[in-house]
């Protein structure tokens, strides 16, 4: 094995030991800073809590808010032989149980924010049984144990092993890089939010994580001295990769536990942030917040990213106008592929509708239903090969075989595994990729192909629409659209239908339109369409 994630991070601890690695912004306005040296020491303490007989096939789960203790637990897991998974602290305890079962979880590290949620599991015998084989470590942030946590721990200790730890009281432990051959091939397991059914665990190879860091750092020009703002969860591939890149390149990472526009903008000013990896909903809130400090951050930030989805054209251009001196990158990928395409900042103005070109080390193919390459400009399924390709879904061979396949004969090396993304795309004459929605969302109305994403895009072209979603009832052949309008807007259902009728062919017209001030969300912040659909009935 040529390199490992652990080795690279260990090297950083040596090279940048006195630099600041992390700054945690707290709600009282104060902050906690940790040097690379101090982070390694804290991670050593967490590592010393792991069982000595922890084997490479047992998983470590981190169910914590964004904090220096969370990052230290990630680093400690990277120094172990086991794979680890970060569980979004917004997901329910039920889902944690599901994840524990799927991933052969041996240790679950919780903090004050999540330990209370585990109380929900005391009602169900099956949940209790799942949790009984897991050792729970509660990392608390103060010496004493407040009554509510004490009571919760007592409740849980009836059926599982649980201990509460104050890291300041743990003896120092010197971290050692494990021998490469002893480490599990799959180092990280990311559970996809899964809009339907239970989340699936995507297994990722340690070496691939290093390749991702190199590719990202090169594109964003990351170097020592950069200050990156972390708002995205570590359970999301983009947030997780930002952390690795920051640590490996010797940057400073600011941890902010707030998605409120004013807090983000203040943090950028206070800590002189140079780069932010963000998602559309986050930038949308900035565009709509109308804050005075935006002019100031334009002079501080070097780059931002729009990842995990795209913005409506009017909002994308509004963001561009708000931050004229900031480089805007767009990225496109899935948990199963990490990053397939990237639109570089220098191409943003000319090609902002596209998601850019394949990133270095990635090759994309566009195939038709029969597995043949489509002609330039034609729509087909996007196939991803190279850096970012997952190892498979944990404990689900069937799902793995549907997603991770060999290319049809004649299109590449025979044993090369590629990801069938299920996304529809086309490539223009300059090699830029355009997305046309999900293959499994496409449906036919009276023989015509309908891409629901096109309906949603047209809705968002309306000045008073912030976000939109849609659903299709195949039995009734009915399209329903869900519209999040601006707060002070008097937009009506009729006005929206009228607006759409000038922009869409009749077979794409919705029969129902529902208006919202805000949408229900999944733990990762995406629109929760199943909930919308069930409410609409």
């Amino acid at each position, binding site marked *: 094995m040529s390199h490992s994630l652990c080795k690279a991070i260990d090297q950083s601890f040596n090279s940048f030991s006195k630099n600041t690695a992390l700054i945690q912004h707290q*709600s009282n306005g104060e902050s906690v800073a940790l040097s690379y040296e101090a982070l390694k020491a804290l991670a050593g303490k967490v590592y010393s809590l792991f069982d000595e007989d922890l084997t490479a096939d047992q998983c470590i789960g981190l169910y914590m808010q964004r904090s220096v203790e969370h990052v230290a637990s990630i680093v400690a897991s990277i120094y172990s032989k086991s794979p680890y998974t970060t569980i979004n*602290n917004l997901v329910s305890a039920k889902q944690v149980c599901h994840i524990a079962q799927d991933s052969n979880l041996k240790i679950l590290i919780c903090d004050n924010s999540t330990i209370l949620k585990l*109380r929900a599991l005391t009602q169900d015998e099956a949940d209790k049984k799942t949790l009984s084989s897991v050792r729970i470590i509660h990392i608390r942030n103060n010496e004493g144990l407040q009554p509510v946590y004490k009571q919760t721990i007592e409740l849980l200790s009836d059926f599982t092993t649980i201990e509460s730890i104050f890291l300041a009281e743990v003896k120092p432990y010197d971290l050692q890089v494990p021998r490469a051959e002893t480490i599990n091939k799959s180092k990280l397991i990311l559970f996809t939010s899964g809009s339907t059914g239970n989340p699936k665990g995507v297994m990722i190879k340690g070496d691939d994580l290093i390749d991702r860091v190199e590719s990202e750092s090169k594109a964003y020009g990351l170097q020592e001295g950069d200050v990156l703002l972390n708002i995205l969860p570590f359970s999301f591939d983009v947030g997780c990769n930002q952390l690795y890149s920051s640590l490996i390149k010797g940057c400073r990472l600011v941890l902010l536990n707030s998605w*409120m526009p004013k807090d983000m903008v203040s943090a950028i000013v206070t800590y002189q942030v140079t780069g932010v990896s963000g998602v559309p909903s986050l930038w949308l809130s900035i565009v709509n917040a109308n*804050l*005075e400090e935006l002019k100031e951050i334009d002079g501080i930030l070097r780059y931002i990213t729009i990842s995990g989805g795209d913005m409506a054209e009017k909002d994308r251009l509004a963001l561009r106008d708000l931050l004229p001196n900031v480089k805007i990158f767009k990225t496109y990928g899935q948990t199963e592929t990490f990053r397939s395409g990237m639109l570089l900042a220098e191409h943003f103005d000319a090609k902002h509708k596209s998601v850019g070109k394949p990133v270095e080390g990635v090759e994309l193919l566009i195939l038709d239903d029969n597995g043949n390459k489509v002609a330039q400009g034609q729509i087909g399924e996007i196939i991803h090969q190279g850096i970012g390709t997952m190892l498979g879904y944990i404990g689900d061979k069937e799902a793995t075989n549907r997603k991770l396949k060999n290319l049809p004969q004649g299109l590449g090396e025979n044993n090369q595994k590629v990801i069938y993304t299920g996304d529809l795309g086309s490539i223009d004459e300059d090699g830029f990729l355009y997305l046309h929605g999900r293959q499994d969302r496409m449906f036919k109305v009276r023989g015509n192909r309908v891409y629901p994403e096109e309906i949603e895009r047209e809705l968002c072209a309306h000045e008073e629409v912030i976000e939109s979603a849609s659903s299709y009832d195949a039995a009734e052949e009915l399209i329903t659209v869900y519209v999040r309008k601006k707060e002070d807007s008097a937009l009506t259902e009729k006005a929206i239908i009228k607006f759409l009728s000038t922009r869409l062919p009749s077979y794409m017209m919705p029969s129902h339109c529902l208006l919202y001030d805000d949408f229900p*969300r999944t733990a990762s912040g995406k629109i929760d369409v199943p909930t919308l659909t069930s409410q609409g009935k």
Partner: protein
Amino acid sequence: MNAEVISEKVREIVQETIDSSGLGIEVDDEMSLIEGGLLDSMSIVKLVQELQQTFDIDIDFSDITISNFDSISALNQYVEARKAGA
């Protein structure tokens, strides 16, 4: 409306918002609501609407911050200041 009434109502509103997410947790004044993962962005929207209606105040975007919203005691202070016309 005096400080005691305000603080009682704020606690009630926050508790109701958290109950609607089915967590079954009784919040105290100092518990971290946002950092602690008890409130997500959807509940914040509801909470802001509730506070505006109950106390007849306008809450500006620039006031929706973690320092004003992270605990019941922080919210109390904020609402009191707004009611006092600050």
